[in-house]
Every structure is written in C-alpha cells, then in structure tokens.
C-alpha cells in the first residue's frame, strides 16, 4: 500500500466516469422496465385462477431462484442471439437486469397491494368503481407509498448487480476496473477506486430515496 500509484487512477479516471454513466444508465433502465413489467407480473400472480397464475409464479421462481450471472450468460449467448441480428453486451445486461428485477418488483407490488386494508377496495367497489378504477385511484396510490423503501432497496441492489456486465465486456464501471488491472497488474488502485465510486452512487441514491420517502410521508 505504500506505493499506491495514483497515476493509474488519474489515467483511467475518464474511463471510470464513462463506465459510471453506463452503470447508471443500465440500472435506471433496468429498474424502470422492471417496475413496469413487475406490476403486470404481480397482477398475473394475483389472478383468481390457479392455472393462469402458474406462469407468473414460475417466472418469479426462475428469476429469483437462479444466479443472475447464469441468467446473463443465458440471454447474452443463447436467447438474444436467437432473436437479434447482432448482440450488444449492454443490451444483454439491460434485458437481463430488467427481467430479473421484474421478478423482485412483482413481489414488492404484490406485498404492497395486499397490505392495503380490504375495506378500501370494498368501499370503492360499493360506490360503483370498477376494478381498474379501484386499482388506479384507491389501491395503487396507497400501496406505492409503502413500496418506496423496498423499491429503493431493489434499485441499489440492481446498481451493484450491473457490475456483472463486466464479465461479458459491457463497458460499465467494473469493466474499466478490470481493464486497468489487466494493463498494470495492479489490484488495489483500480478496484478500490471502482468500489469507492459504487459507494458514492449507492449513498447518493440512499439519500435521494430518504428524501422521496419523507416527501410522500407528509402528503
């Protein structure tokens, strides 16, 4: 540690910054797509028919029950090449993160929706509101408030998980850490710097989420 070579960090800083932007982008799209998809999967999992629920249950089982890295390989080397003409590692990461986080977000939605007192839906229905109106105006706004902390948590996990993209050469933050390590045969300078940047990102996110939570709590 005595000969900590700052010049490596200085040299790679522009790449780390670029990588950081990709990391943010990929996680942001992942969490957005995951939230939209997760909502519908949650609805699917709450269908009255057991048979219709089954695909949604197994979607969640698969994405929560297998390693994210394996899912990433599966999509990057098998599924996406079969659908797309050319495979781009960033696209693979975004797709995998979206589908994976959808499984977790689905459970967050379901827990949030089911935590709302039954009397709310009953009262809304008794006034003549249809299922969609009850969901949109009565259940979801209340459920969403309770979902902010677990959703934020999911976002933070996603941000760190996006680093798996380095293994399929998606040029995100950790990828550049590995590149610097490869070039200089030095472990500490690149990896500590990368870790510090992840820490700054997740801490910023934590503060942001606390702020959002407080805002929602007071209205």
């Amino acid at each position, binding site marked *: 540690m005595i000969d900590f070579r700052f010049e490596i960090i200085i040299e790679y800083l522009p790449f780390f910054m670029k990588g950081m932007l990709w990391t943010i982008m990929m996680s942001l799209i992942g969490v957005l797509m995951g939230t939209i998809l997760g909502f519908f999967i949650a609805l699917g999992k709450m269908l009255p028919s057991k048979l219709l629920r089954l695909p949604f249950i197994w979607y969640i089982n698969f994405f929560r029950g297998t390693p994210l890295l394996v899912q990433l390989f599966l999509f990057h080397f098998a599924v996406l090449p079969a659908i797309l003409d050319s495979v781009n590692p960033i696209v693979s990461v975004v797709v995998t993160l979206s589908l994976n986080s959808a499984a977790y977000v689905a459970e967050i939605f379901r827990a949030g929706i089911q935590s709302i007192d039954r009397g*709310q839906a*009953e*009262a*809304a229905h*008794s*006034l*003549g*509101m249809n299922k969609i*109106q009850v969901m949109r*105006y009565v259940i979801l706004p209340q459920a969403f408030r309770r979902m902010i902390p677990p959703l934020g948590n999911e976002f933070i996990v996603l941000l760190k998980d996006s680093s798996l993209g380095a293994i399929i050469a998606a040029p995100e933050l950790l990828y550049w850490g590995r590149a610097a390590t490869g070039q200089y045969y030095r472990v500490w300078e690149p990896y500590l710097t990368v870790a510090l940047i992840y820490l700054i990102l997740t801490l910023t996110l934590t503060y942001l989420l606390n702020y959002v939570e407080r805002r929602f709590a007071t209205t």
Partner: protein
Amino acid sequence: MISVKNLKKSFGDLEVLKDINVEIKPKEVVVVIGPSGSGKSTFLRCLNLIESITGGSVEIEGKDITAKKTDINKLRAEVGMVFQQFNLFPHKTVIENITLPMMTVRKWKKEAAIQKAKELLDKVGLKEKADVYPDSLSGGQKQRVAIARALGMEPKVMLFDEPTSALDPEMVGEVLEVMKQLALEGMTMVVVTHEMGFAREVGDRVLFMDEGYIVEENEPQALFGNPQHERTQAFLSKVL
C-alpha cells in the same frame, strides 16, 4: 323497492344466510338486529353484491341483481353502503373522497362534483373540513364524510352496517342525527345497529336475525314491547 326471496349465502361449507325473505318498500327504514355472527353484515353485503349470492333472488326496483346482464357497478352506485370502519380513502382529502366516485363512476365534471360535494358536506355539518385529510377527523366526522360520499352517488337505497359501533359514545349522536335527517327526507334505508333508541324512533320495521334466518319482524314498538319468539326475547333481554 327491494324484494329478497329465499336468499342463501355460504362461505365454503359454512351456510351463513339460510333462507332470507323480505320486502322493503320505498322510503321505508328497516332496522336489522341480532346476535354477533347471525349474518347481518352478510345480508347487507349481498344487497349490493360485495358478496356473491349463493341462492335465491334479490330484486331492486324490479331488476334481478344476480341476472347476468346486470351491470354490477351501476347497481352498486345506486345502493349506497356505509361501513362500521368508515373506509375513507386516507390519501384523499375529505372533498376528494366525495368527488372521486362522482367523477369516475357518474362522470361528473370536476367543478360540478366539487359544487355538489360541498353541498353534501354542508348537509352533514362538515363544510369547513373539505380540504383536510381523513386522519385529522374524529370518528364521528369520518362517518359523516362516509355518508356524504355515499350520497354523492345519489343512491336509491342506503345500507348502514353498524355505522356507530366503532365510535366513542359522545360521537354516536351526531351520526345518528344525520341518518335521522336522511330518513325524514324519504331515503330508503336498511340499518344494522345496536342503537335500540334509533330503531324505535326512526325505524318503520325491525328485523331480528339469528343463525341465518329472519326469526321475527315487526314494528319497533311491537317487536321490542312484545317479542313473540323465544330467541328474540332472549336477545332483547340481553341488550335492552
């Protein structure tokens, strides 16, 4: 107005309503009493299809509410319901609680809905509470808002399921007063309650329910003063 014939309702193996028959006339105030678990709530909930009906028929203004072609949401809008637990929407202000169903179900324009909601709040004595959230209201105030919200749909019938049972004693009066006013205006009402004073004063008829049947029904004076069935006598001796 409401005609219930051989109404049955089961939850799985548990038969809660066994054979309910009753005719309710327009402008009539019918009070339902009976021991806990006798099926009073379930009976009310069947009348606006919060619970599905297992057997028999319910007609409201000549329309069979269980018929396949019945628009359930339209029916429910015409049958107002007030719950023991108020069930106000906590994320909406008082006036939004009232305007939301008016705008989404009745398709009122916002300005018109607000106008009408203000009149309703005035009617239940809560004009000055329009813009607060339900959390800051007392139980009695919440229940009056819930009544105003149901009235916003301009229902033909109002169902009340123990509207004062969750209230502190000093707030029971203000809610009963609003209900009494409604009755005077000619609203058809079915009220499950333990408030025997209200039943005597406002009720046109009292139904005594036990174990899924209407065991006895009569005018309040007669039913309270001279109950015919043993079970009615036993119940009344406990609550009066």
